């Protein structure tokens, strides 16, 4: 008998998309990507929302079940208007990635200004007020994600510098000065992730190591195809990749992923692992709405184990 497997390792929730511009109390350009975290029993998303003028800010959304969200009217983080951050955030703040570290929530975001992209780092306890800690990269670096604990005594982050289109890791003693940068994953010629890759979700600790969902881009004659894959990094030496899926775990297939301001795009900034091992991936679709996909840790592990084989 033929067994139905579904098109992707990640299953779309039947109520997708979970947040569209119709769910907002204000007009906007579009809704892109969301960072995600579970605080107690509450699910919190941080959304990148583009104003009608074209600038990005970060808005919180809350939910008790992880499916139905209320989006705040006011941003948690908007482009800084004065002071040292202003010239580096002139075009927006976007793509927040949340990590719980030493009892506080740290948010890596892309600071977008006329001089390029920098990684911004901010901290919050309650998602109602936020403190900017600093801009902590050189340009053009984006897609930063903090590890949720120190590794061998140092803070660690993943990031995507522009040159080389690869995922790098950097370390710090104080979250302020960063160094010891090394490349850990590069695009693979011919594969679905042949042109550019970057961190999607902050690393989550599982038995096998650090689970990382990343985005991979393949260029086509009608533009890029942006998909999600998964990798696991070694627990104590995260510069070593333990496993990486040969195939995407989620590809744009349905209308809300194919049609929007940026076509053929699924992109995530946050995933949550439930106590039962379910992985909930909050992902942006076509730069226009937020969706939910679910899978299991064991399915991802199985996928990269399969990738080792030649068939």
């Amino acid at each position, binding site marked *: 008998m033929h067994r139905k497997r579904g098109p992707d390792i990640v299953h779309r929730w039947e109520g997708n998309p979970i947040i569209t511009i119709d769910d907002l109390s204000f007009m906007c350009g579009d809704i892109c990507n969301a960072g995600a975290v579970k605080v107690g029993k509450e699910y919190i998303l941080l959304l990148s929302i583009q104003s009608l003028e074209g600038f990005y800010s970060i808005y919180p959304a809350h939910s008790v079940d992880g499916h139905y969200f209320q989006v705040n009217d006011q941003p948690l983080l908007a482009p800084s208007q004065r002071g*040292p951050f202003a*010239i580096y955030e002139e075009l927006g703040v976007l793509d927040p990635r949340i990590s719980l570290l030493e009892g506080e929530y740290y948010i890596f975001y892309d600071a977008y200004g*006329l*001089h*390029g*992209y*920098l990684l911004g780092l901010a901290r919050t306890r309650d998602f109602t007020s936020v403190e900017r800690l*600093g*801009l*902590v*990269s*050189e*340009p*053009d*670096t984006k897609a930063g994600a903090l590890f949720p604990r120190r590794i061998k005594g140092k803070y660690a982050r993943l*990031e995507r*510098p*522009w*040159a*080389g289109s*690869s995922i*790098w890791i*950097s*370390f*710090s*003693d104080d979250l*302020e*000065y*960063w*160094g*010891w*940068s*090394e*490349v850990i994953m*590069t695009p693979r010629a011919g594969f679905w992730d042949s042109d550019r890759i970057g961190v999607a979700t902050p690393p989550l600790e599982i038995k096998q190591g650090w689970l990382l969902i990343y985005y991979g881009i393949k260029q086509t004659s009608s533009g890029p195809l942006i998909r999600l894959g998964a990798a696991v990094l070694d627990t104590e030496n995260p510069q070593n990749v333990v496993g990486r899926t040969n195939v995407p775990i989620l590809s744009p297939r349905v209308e809300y992923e194919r049609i929007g301001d940026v076509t053929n795009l699924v992109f995530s900034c946050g995933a949550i692992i439930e106590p039962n091992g379910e992985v909930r991936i909050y992902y942006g679709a076509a730069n226009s709405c937020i969706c939910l996909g679910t899978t299991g840790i064991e399915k991802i592990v199985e996928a990269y184990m399969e990738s080792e084989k030649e068939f």
Partner: protein
Amino acid sequence: MRKRIGRDVFHRWEGNPTLTLEDIPFRCNTVFNGTPAKLADEYVLLLRVEGQQGYSFFALARGRDGFHFQVEDRPVLLPAKGDVFGIYEARGIEDPRATFINDSWYVMYTATSNYGSRIALAKTDDFHHFERIALISEPGNKDGVLFPEKINDQYVRLDRPIGLNVGSIWISYSNDLQSWGHSKVLISPRKGYWDSYRVGASAPPIKTEQGWLEIYHGVKMTVSGPVYRVGTVLLDLKDPSLVISRCNVPLLSPREDYERIGDVNNVVFACGALVEPDGEVKLYYGAADTYLCVATARLGEIIKYSLNEKKDR
């Protein structure tokens, strides 16, 4: 009567080019960007030599007067093999800049590989034995120069990352020379000017009474390719992220045959300068990515030009 003032503020040494392929005791492609140091009784130049294979490494030249140099028989620093440096130096090491600090020479250079260019830092006392300290930038960054003293108790560098396709000079800070932060943009290309396409640090900053003198390179794009010139900017002594003044005009432009004709046409590119006790500045520069040259100017004259930022407009 018309007064003759010369073509550029920097005067070319009449013996230029100082070093060419003919002066290298081993077979190679070219010798160009070099950084100078004045040791006890001699001048040395740490030179970028491009081998015939196509990747670059460093050789050493020594001389008594700062103009005539002898190149040693063997290279002094080759791209690393193995370890983390081996990965990022796989396509060569380029453009050294030497700074004297903490009683040693620290050399920032560009490590190149398939992963992009990065700034590396090595330490030496004699320009023969080098200790690699760290790879200190992210990829896509080059032209790192270290300030010759700590400022507000921190090490400071200038560098040249690319943001949104624009090559600006940035400034970064460190407590340990390993991890760096607080990066800020310092100067960007100026529309319409000789430095409208890209700018980058060239010589390690020189301390003067009027501020830190940074001799930088500015690039203008033309239909036949880029033109590289030498310019200056003065930075605040206590807070070098503040620009005091930036020279409107280049102080040296490619004009001679040896600057216009070579592997890369129309390039003058400095990696270091020395200030003599009498105020003469010796600028060591690569010409057309093919020769190593020297030019001189009075420090006072350079400062005067550097302060002309607003006068011309």
